[in-house]
């Protein structure tokens, strides 16, 4: 898969890196000379130019690209890059700079398929680090829906039970289960929950603290789990 990333700054370059690590081809577009050199030094194909111009995007082989990530710090440039990308049939991902704008772009920007607000993702990571322990928020799926990973502890009430015996509250689904040393997998109802196992649950915010007390048995401020 070929991906075009506009902006080789802290968000764009990092994204390019993880795409490359997953075996994808990435072309970066960047107009700041210093950033171009840094990205080239890191071994990336970099086009030196303005990613909000069609001719630049054309030379990035946009027609062959699967998706374009408009990840600069400039909202106008990002939006224009997505509009052009859409014309070429690419899936488009746009970085925004303030969280209230997420709603506006979701609603009105029909050329933008996905919106990324890096600070929100950073806040989720920071929250997990602060909470520590056996619960990790993976993502906010929607305003009221969160994806959470729980780790079964020795004191967890569900420890020793099988997955089929696990009864979660309404508005929640068990999506994945993994033994402590194995990758996550589709839940097998016959598996037993041991200490160190991981469970990935999709839950409504209102149900999260119930899920938490059922699975890991801790009571705590459920607010800490709320959206980032």
């Amino acid at each position, binding site marked *: 898969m070929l991906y075009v990333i506009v902006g080789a700054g802290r968000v764009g370059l990092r994204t390019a890196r993880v795409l490359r690590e997953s075996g994808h081809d990435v072309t970066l577009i960047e107009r700041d000379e210093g950033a171009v050199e840094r990205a080239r030094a890191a071994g990336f194909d970099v086009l030196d130019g303005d990613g909000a111009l069609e001719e630049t995007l054309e030379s990035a082989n946009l027609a062959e690209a699967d998706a374009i990530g408009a990840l600069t710090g400039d*909202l106008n440039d990002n939006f224009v890059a997505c509009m052009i990308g859409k014309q070429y049939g690419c899936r488009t991902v746009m970085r925004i700079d303030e969280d209230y704008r997420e*709603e*506006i772009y979701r609603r*009105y920007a029909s050329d933008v398929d996905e919106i990324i607000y890096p600070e929100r993702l950073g806040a989720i990571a920071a929250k997990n680090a602060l909470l520590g322990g056996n619960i990790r928020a993976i993502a906010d799926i929607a305003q009221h829906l969160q994806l959470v990973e729980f780790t079964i502890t020795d004191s967890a009430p569900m420890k020793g039970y099988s997955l089929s015996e696990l009864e979660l509250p309404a508005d929640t689904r068990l999506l994945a289960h993994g033994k402590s040393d194995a990758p996550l997998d589709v839940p097998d109802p016959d598996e037993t929950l041991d200490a160190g196992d991981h469970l990935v649950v999709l839950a409504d915010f209102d149900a999260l603290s119930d899920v938490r007390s059922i699975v890991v048995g801790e009571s705590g401020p459920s607010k800490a789990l709320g959206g980032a």
Partner: protein
Amino acid sequence: MVTAYVMVKAHTGDADRLRGEIEGIDGVTEAHIVAGDVDLIVKVSVDTPAAVKDAAATHVQDIEGVESTQTYIAMD
């Protein structure tokens, strides 16, 4: 007649309501939600420069969810 363009920056995602309330202000002829550094651009058409200030500075800024405005008076 004085024509002016008012750039509106919001601090809410509720852009529909903002546009609706802005469109209801006397002198506002058009309001569009835009992509970029500002969230709405509003066209104002009134009799005097003072009325521009009244529409833009006073009425638009009074709307809940408006962060700031910047007004440009057309010279042509």
